[in-house]
């Protein structure tokens, strides 16, 4: 069944200006996450034809890889998915740390716990999951999760929570001061109580936070920093808060699945994305921070100073959480079901 792809590539290659003599690269990533100019630059530099397919969630990508359905050269897993992929031996060990452009990777992203010594992946983009509030309604400069869990009257009924089991439960755990990846039944009962009490003030459990904030339906919302920035574009009173009780950080990484058909091209791409100028394209396009030193010079001025991309001095460090054990996942699922049944 590779035939249609090959014919398509051949046909396409006869149409486009440069001759793609060096083969193809099949990227499987989030939608609208790969800057077109980056793709163009890569295609011109190496003569490789790039194809991009998109998934809607890590789970879809994981299901496809686990099932053994191959064909992709590049994937962009989140850091917690990296742990799973490496554990299940679904990635090619390509020794990213030995590549020429590795010198540009910021120190804090080098020896990360989900890919020690950067054997499998390079940084793509990273962000945080904090709180977005409408300062017209939530006055003051409080940065506590109290805004979310013990809302003022003005906020009641205008709260939005992300539709993600882990994000919601983690927020609750932080507010209660309990550890993450929690398998203590007492703690989880407390979490369920907190969330159930909060539910009456919650408008929705929706990950499309930008629209809710912009339209004013939500005065307070759990939000990814990128969405909050986009919301602020449309509604300047939206402020992104880094909760003092803590918040989740995440990093998307570029990696190569095992059995990738175009391994050499994949390695070229990974090296390519670690170049500061190219990494800046990611930030300019997707509006998330990248992990490469020196890219600041090429990033749009407006983005460079954005509060959503650089936490203030007194904000706590983001928590990069690992995937929890299946037992914990089951307990979390139980809490979620009870909350939403």
């Amino acid at each position, binding site marked *: 069944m590779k035939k249609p792809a090959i014919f398509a590539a051949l046909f396409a290659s006869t149409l486009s200006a440069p001759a793609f003599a060096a083969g193809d690269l099949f990227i499987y990533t989030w939608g609208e996450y790969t800057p077109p100019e980056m793709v163009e630059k890569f295609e011109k530099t190496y003569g490789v034809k790039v194809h991009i397919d998109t998934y809607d*969630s890590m*789970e*879809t990508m*994981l*299901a496809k890889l*686990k099932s053994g359905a191959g064909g992709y050269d590049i994937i962009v897993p989140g850091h917690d998915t990296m742990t*799973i992929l490496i*554990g*299940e031996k679904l990635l090619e060990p390509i020794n990213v740390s030995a590549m020429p452009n590795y010198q540009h990777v910021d120190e804090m992203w080098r020896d990360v716990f989900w890919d020690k010594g950067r054997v499998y992946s390079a940084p793509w983009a990273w962000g945080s999951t904090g709180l977005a509030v409408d300062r017209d309604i939530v006055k003051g400069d409080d940065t506590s999760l109290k805004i979310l869990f013990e809302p003022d009257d003005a906020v009641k009924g205008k709260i939005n929570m992300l*539709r*993600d*089991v*882990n994000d919601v439960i983690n927020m609750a755990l932080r507010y209660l001061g309990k550890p993450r990846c929690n398998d203590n*039944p*007492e703690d*989880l*009962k407390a979490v369920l109580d907190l969330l159930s009490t909060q*539910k009456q003030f*919650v*408008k*929705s*459990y*929706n990950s*499309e936070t930008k629209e809710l904030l912009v*339209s*004013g*339906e939500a005065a307070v919302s759990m939000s990814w920093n990128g969405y909050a920035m986009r919301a602020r574009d449309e509604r300047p009173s939206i402020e992104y808060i880094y909760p003092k009780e803590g918040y989740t950080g995440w990093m998307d990484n570029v990696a190569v699945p095992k059995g990738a058909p175009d391994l050499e091209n994949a390695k070229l791409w990974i090296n390519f994305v670690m170049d500061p100028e190219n990494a800046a394209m990611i930030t300019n396009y997707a509006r998330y921070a990248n992990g490469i030193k020196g890219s600041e010079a090429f990033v749009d001025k407006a983005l460079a100073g954005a509060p959503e991309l650089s936490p203030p001095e007194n904000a706590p460090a983001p928590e990069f959480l690992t*995937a929890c054990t*299946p037992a914990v*996942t*089951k*307990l979390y*699922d*139980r809490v*979620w*079901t*009870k909350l*939403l*049944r």
Partner: protein
Amino acid sequence: MSARPLALSSRIPPGLAHAGLLWPSLGVILVFMVAPIAIMLTYSFLVPGAYGGVEWTFSTAAYEQILFERDFLDDSLTFTPDYLIIVARSLAQATIATLLCLVISVPTAYYIATRSDRVKNIWLFLITIPYWVNLLIRTIALLFVLRDDGPINSALVDLGVIGQPLALSYNGFAISLGLIYSFLPFMVLPLYSAFERFDFRLLEAAYDLYASRRVAFFRIVLPVMRPGLIAGSLLVFIPSVGSYLAPDILGGGKTLMIGNLIGTQFQAARNWPFGAALSMILLTITLIVLVWLARRAAQQQQTN
């Protein structure tokens, strides 16, 4: 009603013709659907893998989980109504949506069927053109219309009809509306096509016999629409039960329906056997409804 099988050609024996007509569909479905589902059935008796997938150890834990849970604190098995509530809610929502669809579609299908030929086709395409827009987008668009500051509420508030916006979104009402919106043509089109050949002289005869409009409609028109009613009801009820977009987007994600629940098992919850078990239960329920309806249809055929 003749029960003689339609022969396509006098040279091909009817049995073979019959098989030739039927087996492409049956074959495709048996191979590409029933076989995969048999795999699912097997999965429902296995143990979940650490990060999705399954491990090949026999277990009935998945089915147990539907009714019982191990208590947080003392690990004893206690009855839990959680999943039953979700199933019941899904069935209720689907039934409401189907009934409302019926109420809207029967007059609409009748009306379209009684237009002139040219106008008929225009109506049909009018009804189906919106469905070229993806379901997710349509659902989000419906939400935008129903929102507190969407066009409906804004207009009503501006005109002074109401003081506060009506709560049309993020609740059960919105979900029902969403289900109807998702599946309306699935009721209208079969009703229309089943009804289009109705002989209106029957109606005239009824009126000649002094039947009122209501009696004429329910005793003459509706029975002829019956095959369409059944087809339409199935095509609306069954997808509604398993719907996951409407409760997610229009219900604000505040309640789970069985579609969401099963979906989660194959995604964040990483419990494929449980998802498979729930699906088998859902399948059984819909099979029962299906067979019941099919039997009733057959009975009607016989009495006609």
